[in-house]
């Protein structure tokens, strides 16, 4: 009886765990860091196989904050990749317990670059990612993991390389960070700057072999925005250090936010039946400054975090933007500050 009860509770527990993820909704599959596959069934040609390989490999360009990458992709493993007549472009098929079984791709009517984009998208599901909305990247690009609902077929071309929200999804699925490229291992990708800032990415960060950002400029700033679905309490966190031992001054970390609601969707693949492609902004489209904190760099790497920020009511989503201003001086002149990691995170 105990064994039976355990089986039932295990099943119910899995059902309960099929909840929300961030920044993307969690996929139906538990997710594989290492995707190893074989081409199964009819219809494969050397061109199709090469294009799937290249599309799936795209995820392996996203670097881990310490070393290496978050994921690996290779041919020769158990996951079956099949050509099917779906009239639906692609499926990722899992067992009810979340084990990835196979990926199905429909080539009918697709161009070569569209097929490759579709391959990248489905491989993202294999790594455990769900769907994003079309506006969930802030570099004007289309996230690889968008839901196809309401999109023209040509959007598949845009899915070939992971974008900002996809980077954030990988790091949030496998850690607590909610931003893309938070430690600058992928250079300055996805980071904006202003106020006359110069931004250089240099080796020698807080972790061996890692990189850091050297920010220069008086009142200069860097920033990044991320879309979080089903947000909770969150904080901003930053790891920072002086550039010159003789320098003095501060950095200032500011958080902005805007509330998101989602309409109900007739589309498949959305948790809560939200249509992530058509958000509305009930508190306005502008970001609202919420809070800021001042930190004083020293000659050692130091982590600091902002006070907790909590939305006033249960929001369905939020766009969070973090700013870091440099107010460091050396011998009376503006100078550099080092930033190795900067991100918002959910409170546990």
């Amino acid at each position, binding site marked *: 009886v105990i064994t039976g009860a355990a089986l039932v509770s295990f099943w119910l527990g899995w059902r309960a765990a099929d909840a929300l993820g961030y920044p993307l909704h969690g996929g139906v599959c538990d997710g594989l860091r290492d995707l190893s596959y074989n081409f199964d069934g009819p*219809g494969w040609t050397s061109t199709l196989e090469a294009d799937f390989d290249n599309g799936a490999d795209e995820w392996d360009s996203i670097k881990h904050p310490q070393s290496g990458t978050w994921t690996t992709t290779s041919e020769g493993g158990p996951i079956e990749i099949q050509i099917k007549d779906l009239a639906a472009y692609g499926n990722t098929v899992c067992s009810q317990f979340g084990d990835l079984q196979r990926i199905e791709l429909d080539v009918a009517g697709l161009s070569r670059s569209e097929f490759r984009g579709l391959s990248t998208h489905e491989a993202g599901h294999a790594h455990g990612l769900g769907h994003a909305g079309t506006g969930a990247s802030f570099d004007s690009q289309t996230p690889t993991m968008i839901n196809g*609902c309401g999109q023209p077929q040509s959007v598949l071309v845009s899915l070939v390389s992971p974008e900002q929200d996809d980077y954030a999804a990988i790091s949030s699925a496998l850690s607590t960070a909610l931003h893309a490229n938070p430690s600058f291992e992928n250079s300055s990708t996805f980071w904006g700057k202003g106020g006359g800032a110069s931004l250089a990415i240099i080796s020698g960060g807080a972790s061996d072999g890692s990189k850091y950002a050297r920010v220069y400029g008086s009142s200069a700033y860097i920033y990044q925005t991320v879309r979080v679905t089903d947000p909770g309490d969150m904080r901003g966190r930053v790891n920072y250090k002086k550039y010159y031992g003789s320098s003095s001054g501060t950095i*200032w970390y500011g958080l902005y936010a805007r509330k998101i609601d989602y309409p109900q969707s007739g589309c498949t693949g959305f948790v809560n039946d939200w249509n992530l492609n058509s958000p509305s902004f009930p508190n306005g489209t502008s970001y609202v*400054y919420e809070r800021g904190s001042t930190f004083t760099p020293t000659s050692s790497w130091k*982590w600091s975090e902002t006070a907790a920020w909590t939305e006033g009511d249960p929001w369905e989503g939020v766009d969070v933007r973090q700013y870091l201003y440099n107010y460091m001086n050396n011998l009376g002149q503006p100078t550099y500050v080092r930033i190795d990691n900067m991100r918002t995170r959910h409170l546990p």
Partner: protein
Amino acid sequence: MSAAISQSDRWSPGVKIGLMLFALLYLALAGFWFAHQQAEHVDPFYITEPRLQDALRGSDVVVTASAVAPSEGWVSDGLEYRGWSIAVQDVVYQANVPTTAWHESPEDDSMPPVRAEDLTLALEPLGYPSEQRSSSVAELPSAGEYVVGLSWWDTSVFTNRPTPWTISFVGTVTGDSVQFQEMDNDRWQAQIDDVRSRVPATASASDIDLLEMWLAELDAWRSSDVEGAIMAADAHASTPENVALEAWQAADPASRALDPELTPPQVFETLSERQLFVVVDEDAERTDRFLIVRTKTGVAHVARLSGGTHPAPTFTLDGESWEFWISTDPVGSDAWKVAVLPGDVVRNNHAVTVEISAALVDRGTAGADGSQAEVRGLTREAFQSDVEAWQAVEATTTTTAIAP
């Protein structure tokens, strides 16, 4: 008792029944677990609202038909297909370049010339049962004239298929017009009308003729990668940048953000960056009050006053005055103006500072005693001096070091 007594004889009937029930329960639960372990969950990338061009692109052949009747379906690896028997009248289009040609499979040059009598059965994919995809062909009236797009699957490669043909779109024909069997026929019709308005050669074409012209362009595009006039017109209407710009232009300036990630690039490149320094008195730091800075073009900054003193980057059109409002919400639906800074003052300074005192955060108080927010332009040096003075105070109060 003899040692030869069987094991079963040692247990009472009640115990035996209990053991049997336990075994049955265990088997039932194991079966339940096994069933769910084997059941599949699908995460589809499914374009539920395809553009008309997407449906056309998936077609190797387009026919007119006098009847489309239910026929035997097909199930393959859990995927369901409804079968439709098609009485073909005419083959109106056949691709010179098969839609699958790019992947250099054996079927590239093996698609035979299509004869009307070959097209007797076509499949309509319905996906996995869990997807609950409905049949659009089933919504056809029982009699009439139809136009049907079909994609071709080589049955010498996909050997278990009962037919090479899969339906990519279907519509009913009335005179010169086509009524598509899609969830939103009006949207496809609007796309046809949009093409007619943009491409003179199609202005007077019937629906069928226009579809043929469109299909011919797609066929040529597959071999040349060059878009025709119809494809270009359709792309213009669906390009995200164009859609975003039109939405921004249609929005109320009081509700659209001047922001590097929210303003369309075509507009943003006309704006200039300036620094804003907002000084909030402690008594004015309220969670239910917001500062809104806006111009005739849009909203430059919004701040919840409980966040206190802060810097902010702003992007505005040179020469426009800045208006400063206090509001009870971030949208400005209940707001009162507390200051205006003329456009020439903004243009001639590196930064702008505004001071929000407690007297300004209640509508009844603001302005009643003549109180207005203090706003002024700052040179780079004055701005730097103000910010450093603020940070010197902040550094002693808000730094919080934590463990990694």
